[in-house]
């Protein structure tokens, strides 16, 4: 019996060794006609593989698309590969702009400015400028990177409000509200028929921050917001109190769905998709999500209702997913040519249709679903922290966002929150000065 078990173990080992040796140890040789692209988008893998095949048929250049999801482990792989010098020809950098800048600084990312400028800037002109901005380093940027465009966006995204057409009709509301008083009137009408107002995943605090930022830009304008981040304007300024008052007013009007401050966005998406709330604040990715949860949902996108009619409502948006080309790749030209082809109108329209994401190519808008077109139509109104001249200190943002939650649950007043945020700002600025 003992002999038998010993033999069994040895056999298992030998079999494992043989299988391992036979099936997995082949080293990969570099093919000069094969471009490798690493991506992280599970839901776009099938259509990217399809496009890669089409590209090979058209040009003879083989594109090897490899998926590494989820995005966290994709980023780890990119970091590890950069250190082992095994980055593919095309990859994405999902981290903050300063990490993007590091990749450029250490020679991993090609400057694509010349390519974008060719043929009178045809490639650049075909894209949404806001999508390119995320991949652009302006002259005198704080990272010390040579000015230029370093990445190619394949889709764009923005965060807006959505309304359920059926629920609004049920409350007798004929058109979506465009200003704040109309919005408050809609909430009243919805309450009368027992429908919840606004739902959003503000348990994920950055979404509440984005909403507040929309109103900060609308109430006081970009210049004053940037001046606040720089430290020249205080959070106790009446305009900032007005921004915080938006949450107080909405909370007192019963506009928020119950539990909004702790709700994860996935749950908020379910609430809107299942018609439990009439309005939602969500990103353009929701089109895909709502389609999966409730294909018959009738809804449309709208800008958050304005308070100050003299200033436009600015929403967060920009490049959704972007790719860069490895600077030292021997197939750099082929990699750039593929990205150029991938971001062209026809391919972008296919990507948008199949994945329900907004195309980065503005010419592709004509052939996309109506609700996506609604989202895309306001791309010129978008802004994003990654392209701002100044960004707020993380501790201040955290205090501000927590303050919003306190206002919504009636724990603090806008004035109290503003004073507390200003105190944090002064403390953090002092700390930053000492560190310098």
């Amino acid at each position, binding site marked *: 019996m*003992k002999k038998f078990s*010993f033999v069994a*173990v040895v056999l*298992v*080992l030998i079999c*494992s060794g043989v*299988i*391992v*040796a036979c*099936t*997995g*140890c*082949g*080293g*990969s040789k570099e093919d000069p006609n094969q471009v490798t692209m690493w991506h*992280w*988008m*599970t*839901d776009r*893998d099938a259509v990217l593989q399809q496009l890669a095949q089409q590209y090979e048929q058209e040009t003879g250049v083989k594109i090897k698309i*490899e*998926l*590494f*999801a*989820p*995005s966290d*482990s*994709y980023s*780890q*792989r990119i*970091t*590890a*590969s950069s*250190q*082992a010098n*095994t980055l593919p020809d095309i990859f994405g950098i999902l981290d903050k702009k300063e990490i993007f800048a590091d990749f450029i600084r250490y020679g991993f990312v090609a400057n694509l400015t010349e390519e974008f400028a060719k043929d009178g800037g045809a490639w650049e002109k075909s894209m949404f400028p806001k999508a390119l901005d995320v991949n652009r380093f302006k002259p005198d940027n704080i990272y010390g990177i040579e000015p230029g465009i370093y990445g190619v966006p394949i889709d764009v995204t923005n965060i807006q409000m959505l309304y359920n057409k059926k629920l609004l009709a049920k409350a007798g509301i004929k058109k979506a509200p465009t200003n704040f008083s109309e919005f408050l009137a809609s909430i009243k009408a919805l309450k009368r028929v027992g429908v919840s107002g606004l739902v959003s995943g503000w348990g994920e605090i950055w979404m509440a921050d984005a909403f507040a930022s929309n109103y900060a830009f609308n109430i006081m304008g970009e210049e004053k917001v940037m001046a606040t981040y720089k430290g020249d304007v205080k959070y106790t300024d009446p305009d900032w109190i007005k921004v915080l008052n938006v949450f107080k007013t909405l909370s007192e009007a019963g506009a928020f769905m119950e539990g909004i401050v702790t709700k994860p966005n996935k749950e908020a998406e*379910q609430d809107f*998709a*299942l018609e439990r709330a009439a309005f939602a604040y969500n*990103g353009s*990715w*929701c089109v*895909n*999500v709502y389609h*999966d*949860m*409730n*294909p018959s949902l009738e809804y449309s996108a709208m800008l958050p209702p304005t308070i100050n009619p003299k200033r436009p409502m600015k929403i967060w948006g920009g490049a959704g997913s972007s790719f860069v080309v490895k600077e030292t790749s021997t197939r750099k030209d082929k990699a750039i040519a593929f990205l150029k082809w991938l971001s062209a109108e026809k391919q972008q329209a296919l990507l948008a249709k199949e994945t329900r994401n907004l195309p980065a190519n503005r010419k592709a808008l004509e052939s996309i679903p109506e609700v996506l077109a609604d989202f895309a139509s306001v791309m010129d109104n978008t802004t994003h922290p990654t392209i701002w001249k100044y960004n707020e200190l993380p501790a201040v943002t955290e205090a501000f966002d927590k303050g919003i939650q306190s206002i919504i649950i009636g724990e603090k007043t806008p004035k109290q929150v503003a004073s507390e945020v200003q105190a944090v700002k002064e403390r953090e600025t002092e700390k930053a000065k000492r560190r310098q």
Partner: protein
Amino acid sequence: MNEPTKRNLKYLGLHAFLLSVALTCLFPLFWMFRCSLMDNQTVFTDKGLIPSVINFGNYADAWTKGGFGVYFFNSILYTVSVVVGIVLVSSLAAFAFSRLKFWGRDAFYYMFVIAMMIPLPGSFVPLFVLMNKLGMANTRIGYILCMINVGLSLSIILLKTFFDKMPSDLEDAARIDGCSKWQIWWNVALPLARPAVAVIVIFNSLNVWNEYILAQLLLSDDKLMPLQRGLMAFAGKHSVDYSLLMAALTISAVPIILLYLAMQKHIIKGLSSGAVVG
């Protein structure tokens, strides 16, 4: 209150508590199975414990869409190879640390203990660079060796604790019977440590079966990926196909549940006889 009533009440309380613990553990599995039989819309709307419409087709869809055939084979291969490797290497090492005297024994042992403190993500970059330098990145053997390394520390500690308790008379008797050190390890120490080995097998099987992050880092070729990769097919960045994901999760959970049931007797014995002490 008389004695039998007191005893019955005590048992009733104890059983109620154990039942609630069992329910807490089993309910997520039941919910996973329940959702695997629904479609993506009814997952959110059907509130009943038993779905109003049952759809077993999700399993076939999950298997084909997730490409489970090759991933399943890979996961079985990785699990068997890694667990066999860990049991062999850790039992030899633990035996040496426990029963043999050699220079630097304690220092080497503490090195393994310290290695346990390093979280896996902390070693990602060095591991990836090392595997690339050795030409073992994107190979099955590279991944298997890394996973054996990951499981060694805990297994050595568990087995050493067990071997430490082995009476030295047994070893002496085997030596008088003419056994070499190898034979004592194989014929005496290892059979006695069967409960501890069972614990190591189940712990490491679970670990390898559910591992994905290291596989994702070291392997590029889709054909080499483990089962967890198949699950990713149903979870996009923003949208999730819940019904297929739950069917896929059920498929991936079945082998490990069967393994646990098969080894349950040994695991309980191993745990209760102090296999996890220290």
